[in-house]
């Protein structure tokens, strides 16, 4: 419970110091030398997407909303299949895992989250980048891997690539929006209302290498509606290998 309190304090810190330059950052990277031609008809295994949708209270707390989350999950999965079909790839849902397989899968989901978190923190965005990763950025090197253990994941033998998706939306509540307006016209403080962030990553299911990762701290599109979800998935999969032409149409 202590963490929850710390979070509140943190939220307040953000609120009071407010003019935080926002997380409006996005960045993509592709493993050097990796190319995926359009219409190459690859099979992409999609692991259970982590989707969480809710509201943001006046004080900035996340208020999970099950209905929105379920809608969003359905919409995102649908939009994803459509988008990949457009690229000439086939999307397969990862099968339900049991026993040791399920534990192995869970470990790899956690590993992917840790690796992509490291990429985002230490290679992508200004603030905390490691000197070695800055050098990598300069040399266009993007080298991360989950290890060849991914080949044993359920469903991996029948697919070429694995796709992981993380998406979190907090829509500003009425109270939060009123606060935002009042803060803008009153003391002139910029209060952020709503938070829409996510990342998606593609891995090679034979080697475990991270082939492509896209992280976006401020995305558009209302995931609770199917057309909004299409826009969102378009942004989440921005610069997806083989989609450079497609991308312009999505925008």
């Amino acid at each position: 419970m202590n963490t929850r309190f710390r979070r509140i304090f943190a939220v307040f810190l953000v609120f009071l110091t407010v003019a935080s330059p926002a997380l409006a950052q996005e960045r993509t990277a592709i493993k050097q030398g990796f190319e995926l031609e359009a219409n190459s008809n690859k099979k992409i295994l999609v692991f259970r997407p982590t989707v969480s949708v809710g509201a943001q209270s006046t004080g900035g707390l996340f208020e999970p909303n099950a209905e929105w989350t379920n809608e969003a999950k359905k919409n995102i999965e649908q939009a994803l299949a459509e988008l990949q079909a457009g690229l000439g790839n086939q999307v397969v849902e990862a099968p339900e895992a049991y026993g040791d397989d399920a534990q192995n899968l869970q470990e790899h989901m956690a590993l992917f989250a840790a690796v992509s978190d490291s990429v985002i923190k230490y290679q992508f965005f200004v603030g905390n980048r490691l000197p070695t990763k800055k050098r990598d950025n300069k040399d266009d090197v993007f080298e991360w891997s989950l290890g060849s253990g991914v080949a044993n994941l359920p469903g991996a033998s029948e697919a070429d690539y694995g796709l992981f998706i993380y998406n979190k939306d907090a829509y500003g509540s009425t109270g939060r929006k009123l606060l935002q307006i009042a803060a803008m016209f009153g003391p002139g403080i910029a209060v952020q209302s709503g938070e829409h962030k996510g990342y998606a990553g593609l891995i090679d299911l034979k080697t475990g290498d991270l082939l492509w990762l896209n992280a976006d701290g401020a995305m558009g599109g209302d995931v609770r509606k199917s057309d909004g979800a299409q826009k969102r998935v378009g942004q989440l999969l921005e610069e997806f290998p083989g989609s450079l032409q497609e991308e312009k149409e999505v925008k």
Partner: protein
Amino acid sequence: VKAIFCAGVGLLCSTFSPSPALATPAAAPPPYEGIYQPQGVDEIGLWREDDESERSLSNSPIVIRDEGLNTYLKGVLCEAVGFDRCGSARIYVIKEPTFNATMSPNGTMRVYSGMLLRMRSEAELAAILGHEFGHFENRHSLNQFKSHRSGTDLLSWAALLASMSPSYQSRSNFENLQISVYGNLYRYQRDQEREADLLGLGYLNSSKLRPQAASEVWQNLMKEIEASTSARGLKKPRFDRIAYTSSHPPQAERAGYLADLAIPEGATRDDGADRYRAEISKWIPEFLNDQILLNDFGASEYIINSLAETGWTADLWFARGELFRLRGNQRDYINASQFYREATILQSDMADAYRGLGLALMKTGERTDAQIALSKYLSLKPEATDAKMIGMMIPKEETE
């Protein structure tokens, strides 16, 4: 000013005074209302998040998946809260040596292995499980979420107003308000713990187990904390003080009111100490090892000694040997060797005890005896992962 703040914070501003409900035996729990499903957008949302988190927990490597242990714990929970209620909770044993158990909104109960190590009877275990179940039954996570939300909502507006009139007075008013709102959130959390204690004792009073055990849990914990602080040369802790950010009532207060809440007739009931020991004994070596690695000498020794109250076993002597050897002062090796020897007397094929004995003797310069003990270790456990390293400490002719 305070009145205005209180009106804003609403319910949160009620000050706690020891409730008369905590001074008399706890009443039986309300009748079971059937399987509960979450209601309203907040609760359904919290449960959904929690369902996802339970899904990953169920496949997490920190969970101890032992059917026997889980069936036993589930049985004790059912014994404590009733066979109708207990179906709403799933127990996960987490390999984590601290004294804790948690309950989350959807009925996921996390039981830490460190808690199982410290319990002495089924009744003590039932008291903890009942308390956690009380959190579930009274929807504490949901209420806490709501109180956090209203508290932070209020503070946001107050911060806005304060920043519009940047005077010393408005700033100081805001800071006071902040302190009082956060203070009330913590107080609210402590009151929920008291409520869960009350409910937990309600279950225990109506069960077949001895309700007085609940208070003993906290008495033992206080002794352990004292042992821990005194081994580190710290001031004796105050168990009656509430810190501003305390999440729970102080141990002395809990031990006190839990004793009052137990029905006196229950004192003669069985507390299932033998059954508990029989179920848990095979886990003791592993749990003790995790505890020793916490590097809390006083607490670990207190736990080993209290486990030994019913008689020293080879496992306990061995754990004590490890505790001293891992602290690793020259004087500790002398004691450690003695404890390992006691272990080997009780169980002459305890390979790890010979290993510890050999390593401790090496340190005190008793090379010959050390080598005898180490070769005994290797002969008992030739496949040991450290066999090669240990082998290097033994002269060639002895390993052959």
